[in-house]
Every structure is written in C-alpha cells, then in structure tokens.
C-alpha cells in the first residue's frame, strides 16, 4: 500500500511568488492534515480535512494560505504571495479514523528567498 505522498519534495521560490504543494493521502483515509515546521521551531498544526470539508483550520497563519481538497482525495496547499517567514517543511498526514494514528508524508521543503 502506498504511503502518503507529497510533491514537490523541495521548492525554492522568490518572495512574492506563488507555490502550490500537493498531498496524496493513503487511499480510504478520510482525514487529512497539514502541518509545518519552521526552522528551529516545533511542528505546528495548520488544518484538518474530513473528506472535502475543512474540519478545523485554526492553525492557518493568514489569508495568504489556501488549502483545498476537492473530491475528498488529494489536497493542495497554496501560498500566495510567499513571504520569507513561510520557509520551512510542510507535512501532510492522513488517518482512517478520528482520532487515529496519523501517517505522515516525507514533507515538502519550501525555501523563500
């Protein structure tokens, strides 16, 4: 069974540009989460989807971040426009049950110059 996959693994962009990160959860997992780790800090929750609905988006830092999960399958996280402080590693995780074990992707590293 394929695990959670994230794309791209690393993205380098300039301040003001747009980046879209993609996450494919494990098949059959209705719950999908986005987290991020900014350099030197802890892994912070961004948001939680149940199927295509946003269950909890309390961790989204501001309106430059937009997450979608159309059709309840894969999810995208768009940052527009990117700022320097957005640099970090963005993790996606999925789970079958709520609450349940989270299965993480390898992360997408974002570098904003």
């Amino acid at each position, binding site marked *: 069974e394929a*695990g*959670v996959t994230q794309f791209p693994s690393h993205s380098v962009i300039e301040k003001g540009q747009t980046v879209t990160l993609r996450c494919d959860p494990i098949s059959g997992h209705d*719950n999908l*989460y986005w*987290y991020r780790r900014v350099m030197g*800090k*802890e*892994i*912070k*929750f961004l948001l*939680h989807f149940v199927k295509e609905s946003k*269950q*909890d988006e309390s*961790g989204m830092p501001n309106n430059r971040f937009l997450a979608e999960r159309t059709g309840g399958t894969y999810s995208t996280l768009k940052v527009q426009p990117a700022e320097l402080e957005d640099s970090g590693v963005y*993790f996606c*995780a999925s*789970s079958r049950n*709520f*609450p349940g*074990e*989270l*299965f*993480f*992707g*390898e*992360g997408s590293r974002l570098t904003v110059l």
Partner: protein
Amino acid sequence: AQRVTQPEKLLSVFKGAPVELKCNYSYSGSPELFWYVQYSRQRLQLLLRHISRESIKGFTADLNKGETSFHLKKPFAQEEDSAMYYCAPSNTGKLIFGQGTTLQVKP
C-alpha cells in the same frame, strides 16, 4: 492554552544505558497522548499511544495525570534508537507537537 513541553533538546546516552525523554503537557479535558518518532531519512511515524498501553521497541510511557506528564522510557538504549522524538497530545483529533528531543545513543 494547550501546551506541550519537552525540556531537553538533546539527550545523549551510551548504548545500554537507561533513557527517559520528558514530556509535560498543559491541556484542557483528557487528551489522548502519543509519542511520534522520526529516524534519520525516514518520515515521522507513531511510536506508541497511551490508550493502547503497548511497549514498542522496548519503549513505554506512563501517563501521570497529577503531574500532567507522559515521559518516554527505555531501560537499555540501543544505537538504532537514535532519532528525534515528539510528544503529542490530542483531544480533538489534531496533534499538538512538542519541540522534540533528539536522542543520541553512543556506542
């Protein structure tokens, strides 16, 4: 406010020594508690969860509600235990991660 504290950023022990990674939490309600681990060049994965009361890879964690702690212990550390360990409570399905403790087991 919900908070998780892992006071040690780095814990270095010799192989065969006991190890204890500390975790204290400040949380409303009765959270479920987890330890996640990230080995070098691998993805973050579940090590153990309080509710299952299992011992995984020789690790155990005892919940102390009075002290609001969930320390991770292993009596004899192995080199392959070297990794980053995260304590993570949850009572709404979302995990709140501590800052993590790097465990370094020296030969």
